[in-house]
């Protein structure tokens, strides 16, 4: 283990501890420590859920490329893909915990599940995907579970053949759950007829394309950090760059397609959504479009893929753009009050019924129809803790398990 890796692990561990203590504090005081309120009832945590779910798609891209489409060049990255998928899908489940008002009652999800609720579907499919990625990773590692790790192994005749055979068998199943987590997470939002910003059939396919873009970027970045940017990996990186660029383009197409259709018709709801999305949040919106596009375009350049700092910057830019995209799920949904009507006798007038905040803000009215949500420090620290968790898990696994392929591909 090199010094850089060691210090990263200590840093991640420290952040996790601070975040955990912060969560305990939040459990004591309640969600009053966040900056959410009744009219803006989901914030950074649920944006984080969508973000981590997207990051988990790397496993999906690699497994299907290698075992369904026969792209052997990507094989050295297969385990890394499964590992980042597992780390991110568990992070997605963890970030929901601090958003829950009564986490001690989570058992109710098992005792009294309501199968009409997309949230229940999401819990099921996230768990299945976590299980599938872990199993998949295990099967890929099987031939190398020797010596110190022999106790983890299982007895089979030809371990190499067994691993290969089961990886191939598991690939379509894992692919199904992998697509499932993006689709179902999108459905949590897009099934809600109350929120015009979310209520769109484009959301699920868009979630899949964003996920393929950012999930692949996570694997590319992890691969470059683990193996370096040597010539022998360039073909694999080129392929990943291509997948990322196509996925970003598909995402932007799906997003813009939806906006154009709504904007063209020009209903009151759309006008209000546009005012929020392109009014207050115009810079965030420009960033969510430009950053992934520029990042993905840079990753298409051979010179960028050969330089560690440039590759990291481009990947980071894309991931940051997607994070902002996830943050922007909320404002145009919550600042557009669904209970908006045309008052009797006042045609062509839109009027929104103010909502009681449910908590005391000095100098603010109890009833509001607009709210500038900026996450509290508690929310930011807890989110960082989950990022640190994913990072630490990946680093620990790379350190302790045969994740990296030792010989040259």
């Amino acid at each position, binding site marked *: 283990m090199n010094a850089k890796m060691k210090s990263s692990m200590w840093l991640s561990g420290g952040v996790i501890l601070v975040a955990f203590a912060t969560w305990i504090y939040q459990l004591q005081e309640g*969600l009053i420590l966040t900056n959410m309120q009744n009219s803006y009832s989901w914030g950074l945590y649920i944006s984080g859920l969508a973000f981590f779910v997207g990051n988990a798609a790397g496993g999906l891209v690699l497994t299907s490329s290698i075992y369904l489409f026969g792209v052997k060049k990507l094989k050295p990255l297969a385990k890394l893909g499964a590992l980042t998928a597992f780390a991110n899908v568990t992070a997605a489940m963890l970030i929901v915990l601090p958003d829950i008002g009564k986490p001690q009652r989570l058992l109710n999800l098992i005792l009294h599940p309501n199968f*009409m609720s997309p949230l229940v579907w999401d819990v099921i499919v996230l768990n299945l995907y976590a299980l599938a990625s872990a199993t998949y990773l295990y099967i890929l590692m099987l031939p190398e579970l020797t010596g110190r790790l022999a106790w983890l192994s299982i007895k089979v005749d030809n371990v190499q053949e067994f691993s290969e055979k089961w990886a191939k068998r598991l690939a379509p199943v894992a692919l199904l759950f992998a697509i499932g987590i993006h689709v179902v997470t999108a459905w949590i939002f897009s099934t*809600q007829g109350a929120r015009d910003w979310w209520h769109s059939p484009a959301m699920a396919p868009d979630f899949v394309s964003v996920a393929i873009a950012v999930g692949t970027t996570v694997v590319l970045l992890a691969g470059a950090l683990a193996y370096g940017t040597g010539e022998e990996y360039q073909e694999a990186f080129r392929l990943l760059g291509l997948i990322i660029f196509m996925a970003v383009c598909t995402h932007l197409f799906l997003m813009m397609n939806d906006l154009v259709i709504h904007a063209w018709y020009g209903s009151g709801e759309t006008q209000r959504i546009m005012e929020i999305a392109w009014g207050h949040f115009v810079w965030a919106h420009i960033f969510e479009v430009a950053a992934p596009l520029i990042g993905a375009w840079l990753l298409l350049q051979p010179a960028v893929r050969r330089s560690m700092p440039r590759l990291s910057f481009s990947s980071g830019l894309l991931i940051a753009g997607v994070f902002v995209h996830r943050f922007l799920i909320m404002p145009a949904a919550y600042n557009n009050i669904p209970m908006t009507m045309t008052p009797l006798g006042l045609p062509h007038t839109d009027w929104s019924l103010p909502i009681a905040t449910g908590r005391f803000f000095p100098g603010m009215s109890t009833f509001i129809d607009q709210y500038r949500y900026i996450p509290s420090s508690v929310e930011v620290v807890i989110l960082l803790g989950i990022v640190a968790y994913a990072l630490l898990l990946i680093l620990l696994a790379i350190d302790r398990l045969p994740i990296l392929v030792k010989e040259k591909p």
Partner: protein
Amino acid sequence: MKMGMVIDLEKCIGCRSCMVACKQHNAQPPQTWWNRVFTPGSHRHLTPPAKGVEFFLPVHCQHCENAPCEKVCPVGATYHAEDGAVLIDYERCIGCRYCMSACPYGVRQFNWEDPEKAHVRSEYQEKYHYGYPEDHRHEGRLVYMPLRPKGIVEKCTFCAQYRDKGELPACVRGCPGKARFVGDLDDPNSEVSVMIKQRNAFTLLPEKGTKPTVFYLPPKAKEV
């Protein structure tokens, strides 16, 4: 039996008595209001948005037949009671707030902190408690507590604790204009059913397909 409410906007004087009665009787924490009365079109209550068009709109849980809040609840804490009221089981709710996003009417309220602490934060008189003093179970499920646990969602119950004793909801009793009526929507001859038919009753956001059981009777144009 399917319970429903009719609110006659012609009779509503915008006094907000129902808001206050609801708040007090149901021991709602500071900044939590199950029931809101506003002046549509105006940013200031009781101020006409234009000459001659002023009316007032009370909005609380619409007890929808096709309730999105019930469908999204992952643990079935929000449920339809036998009589059609949409209730929340305070023992079951995990506080995910999915229902708050799903409700188009913005009636659902979260307990962001312990109500006792909220009282102090809002500088309520010390040890001052208001509202129906006992926990109440409806069909075996805990649907009312004078002191809510932090981290759960609450909303209008049509005053389950009073209805189970044969009394009317606090907003109906507290209305000085007698603008509110409750009755059986299944009975075509009930007072509410007749009013809905004869007075061109409308529901809020019919385009959302939620099928509210709260109906409004349109006001006539008013001299302001």
